[in-house]
């Protein structure tokens, strides 16, 4: 026979089970981390895009808008270097060749941006930057991430950096 006390216990068990599971879920990595040897963290392509590319895309846009051509040129160099590093680190994404995607999406717009910076032409730069941004988004669509939409920055996210040229 199930007594009222036993019934209350069962209800308490039922209510506590999900919470216990949640607590286990939160504590499991900590326990594992304490007992297992540390392993290097492997950055995902998303991690690399967020840390290496997206900030530099923004800085390139801000430098070009401020007509700070040396800084824009530097931004282009580090963007190219970053993509080269990413392709080495992760040659394929979901079976697709990252290098080929980058080349197809960005090669021409990056060359156009370089030419605009060399010409120190703000209109030409704005056009090339828009093409570059469109290339980013075309690549995201190709990689089944159409919801990651990049745009020309409308504000700086770098309050500790002056994007204006030094005269």
């Amino acid at each position, binding site marked *: *026979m199930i007594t009222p006390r036993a019934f209350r216990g069962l209800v308490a068990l039922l209510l506590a089970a999900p919470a216990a*599971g949640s607590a286990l879920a939160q504590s499991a990595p900590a326990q594992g981390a304490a007992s297992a040897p540390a392993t290097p963290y492997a950055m995902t392509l998303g991690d690399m895009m967020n840390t290496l590319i997206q900030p530099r895309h923004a800085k390139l846009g801000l430098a070009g808008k401020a007509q700070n051509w040396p800084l824009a040129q530097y931004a282009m160099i580090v963007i190219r270097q970053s993509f080269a590093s990413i392709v080495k680190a992760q040659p394929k*994404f979901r*079976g*697709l060749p990252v290098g*080929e995607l980058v080349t197809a*999406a960005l090669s021409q717009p990056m060359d156009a941006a370089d030419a605009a910076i060399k010409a120190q032409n703000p209109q030409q730069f704005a056009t090339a930057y828009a093409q570059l941004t469109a290339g980013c988004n075309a690549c995201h669509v190709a990689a089944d991430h159409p919801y990651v939409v990049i745009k020309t920055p409308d504000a700086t996210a770098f309050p500790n950096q002056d994007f204006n040229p030094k005269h």
Partner: protein
Amino acid sequence: MRQDGGDVGDETLGNIGMTWLRSAVILAIALAAPLVAHAGGVDMTDEDLNGGADGPSFFGFVRIVGGPGIDDAKVTAELKGGALVTATDLLGLYKIPGFGQDVNPDDVQISCAKDGYKQANVMRHPHTAGDMKDPIEVDCFLQKQ
């Protein structure tokens, strides 16, 4: 009324209670299990979503010979008894799902077309035989007519 003071009704209720207890424990474990299983926080974003069940998929670029990709080009994958048609995206990239594990990928012929162009060449990249997971890259080149 039984001699031990209980009655049949009470015993039945007790059995029902035990059954209910077992059910409650199973339910509790079931509710907790998904939370424990998700403890690792596995991020699937870099994983190949094709588990190989449909055989290798196909992808590739349609390009002008020695030039960039061509968007909105028609790509046809032909197999005995049928064909699948798709189009390239802005980068000139196309993707075609697998035709099934019982289909030999070598039997799938890829071709491309676009108004004002004629097909120049099809380049099939090396693919490990029997690999049902990695997609097969087949690039198609067009030249202006």
